[in-house]
């Protein structure tokens, strides 16, 4: 029998706020242990939670970004379970009435090669709710130590429908989701810092069946490559069991990166009786519709919408849009540069080739990852550069030199051209003389050109460019050379 996988994901995203979900204690990654606590964080006797309005708005914004319906009223529940990282031994969460309902995320699957756009499809969401992060356990040889800094950080839990069928789809989903969340400024989604964490539910069913099989839940998938490997491992494991006539046990499994295998967490099985009930300490939230509309209006364009627009309206190729749109800052830089000079292809090329190359060179030199906003260049630099090339003030060749200079100094390109005397030469007299010299000095190239090899012209252009230090207008040079060769016949 042929089986197909059914995959659902639960993604926890730390919402980027300065303070915690239920108290004003601050949070930042990497602080010294237990320096970011207060009475509420530690669950001291007598303390009470108070909602963080900013976190609620950011979560609503996340929901709008992901196409969810924002609930009229949402409520807070207690999820009761004992664990040493949980200061109250219950987690404040939203069980019955979450903030965001439904939703769908457009994903782009990998194409046949890197340069070819893959298929797009939609993955349905079940809900997004707000809850609090627990503290952090560190397991030592004989003991476990606890740091409560992370306790109480606002978490959005995004729950998909069981709507994916391969590890590739899950990976594509996570990548697209992460782009959107970062775009909307909800979270930086750094998985290494635990800002985005993923659990995967996997089940198999005979191809063609619409009944869901028994699922297992995979935990500890703290990188996208782990998600991929763990899902693939689990599909294989379940396939083997089913093919041998066995049945799948519903269980939670932990992925072990080192061994590339997973094992059952029996300890999690004994108490799934969470005794949810409405939290008596927190009042429900009624979402003001006008405010929801405002939040929606503040949303950035979704990355794949932007990619589509660049392709359809600006005529940019996938190889460029895929690079530009993955980074909101880069695409905004691009659009700003268009205001100086509306030449999308040239400007996109400067950004995705020259600018990114220079930025990564800076990063490789040991400095921390360099972003567009950290460089000395503004959109006006790129726009102006493209403009003076198009206007024939300088050649593309000289443009490269100007780019390097302006990236290093932050000077405007026209100023650099002025200062260094790089203006393109349109003096036909001087160039004509040089051309004649070149034709006379390279009969072989002339012969090849006459035989129909256009490229042979380059061998003639080289000495002219060299002599003019690249300032000869290449278009003019082309025409001139052709004319002189024809005349010489």
């Amino acid at each position, binding site marked *: 029998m042929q089986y197909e996988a059914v995959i659902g994901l639960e993604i926890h995203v730390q919402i980027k*706020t*300065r*303070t915690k979900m239920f*108290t*004003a*204690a*601050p949070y930042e990654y990497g602080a*010294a*242990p*237990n*320096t*970011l*606590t*207060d*009475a509420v964080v*530690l669950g001291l006797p007598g303390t009470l939670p*108070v*909602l*963080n*309005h*900013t*976190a*609620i708005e950011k979560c609503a914004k996340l929901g709008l970004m992901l196409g969810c319906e924002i609930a009229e*009223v949402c409520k807070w529940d207690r999820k*009761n379970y*004992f664990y*040493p990282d949980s200061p109250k031994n219950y987690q404040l969460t939203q069980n019955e009435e979450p903030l965001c309902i439904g939703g769908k995320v457009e994903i782009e699957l990998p194409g046949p090669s890197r340069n070819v756009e893959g298929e797009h499809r939609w993955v349905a969401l079940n809900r997004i709710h707000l809850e609090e992060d627990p503290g952090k*356990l*560190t*397991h*030592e*040889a*004989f*003991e*476990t*130590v*606890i*740091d*409560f800094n992370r306790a109480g950080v606002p978490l959005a839990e995004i729950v998909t429908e069981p709507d994916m069928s391969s590890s590739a789809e899950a990976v594509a989903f996570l990548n697209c989701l992460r782009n959107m969340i970062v775009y909307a400024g909800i979270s930086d989604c750094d998985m290494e810092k635990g800002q985005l964490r993923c659990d995967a539910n996997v089940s198999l069913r005979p191809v063609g069946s619409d009944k869901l099989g028994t699922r297992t839940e995979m935990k500890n998938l703290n990188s996208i490559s782990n998600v991929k490997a763990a899902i693939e491992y689990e599909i294989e494991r379940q396939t083997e069991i089913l093919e041998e006539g066995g049945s799948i046990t519903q269980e939670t499994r*932990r992925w072990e990166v080192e061994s590339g295998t997973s094992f059952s*967490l029996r*300890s*999690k099985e*004994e*108490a799934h*009786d969470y*005794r949810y009930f*409405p939290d*008596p300490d*927190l*009042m*429900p*939230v*009624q979402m003001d519709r006008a405010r929801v509309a405002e939040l929606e209006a503040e949303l950035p364009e979704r990355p794949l919408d932007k990619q589509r627009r660049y392709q359809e309206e600006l005529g940019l190729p996938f190889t460029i849009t895929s690079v530009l749109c993955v980074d909101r800052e880069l695409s905004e830089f691009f659009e700003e540069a268009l205001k100086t000079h509306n030449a999308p292809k040239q400007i996109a090329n400067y950004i995705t080739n020259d600018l990114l190359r220079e930025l990564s060179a800076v990063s490789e030199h040991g400095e921390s990852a360099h972003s567009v906003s950290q460089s000395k260049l503004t959109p006006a630099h790129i726009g102006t550069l493209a403009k003076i090339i198009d206007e024939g003030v300088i050649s593309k060749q000289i443009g490269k030199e100007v780019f390097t200079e302006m990236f290093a100094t932050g000077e405007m390109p026209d100023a650099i051209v002025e200062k260094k005397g790089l203006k393109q030469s349109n003096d036909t007299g001087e160039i004509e003389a040089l051309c004649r010299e070149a034709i006379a000095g390279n009969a072989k190239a002339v012969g090849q050109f006459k035989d129909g090899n256009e490229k042979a012209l380059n061998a003639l252009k080289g000495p002219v460019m060299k002599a003019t230090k690249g300032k000869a207008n290449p278009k003019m040079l082309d025409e001139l050379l052709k004319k002189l060769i024809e005349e010489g016949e």
Partner: protein
Amino acid sequence: MSETPHIDIDYVANLARLDMTDAEKAKLGTQLDDILGYFDKLNAVDVDGVEPMAHAHRVFNVWREGDQPGETYAPEVLTKMAPESRDNQVVVPKVVE
């Protein structure tokens, strides 16, 4: 719930993480069965269409605005009250998942 309900004390005590002796459990079991029998009174009431009451007052949108960081405790506040601590972290017996 026409029959008098009976609590599975072992199951509930485990959920509540309460260690009890068998004698304690036996005594508690009898007392709780009496109490639950008394709770049966509630089944006589028609509650169709009644909205559950989780709070005394119907109030919405009580929250903190502005996301301004407040004061924090020094780690010593925690380590002083904790039964065991080391290097500003709370120590517990090894937790095995």
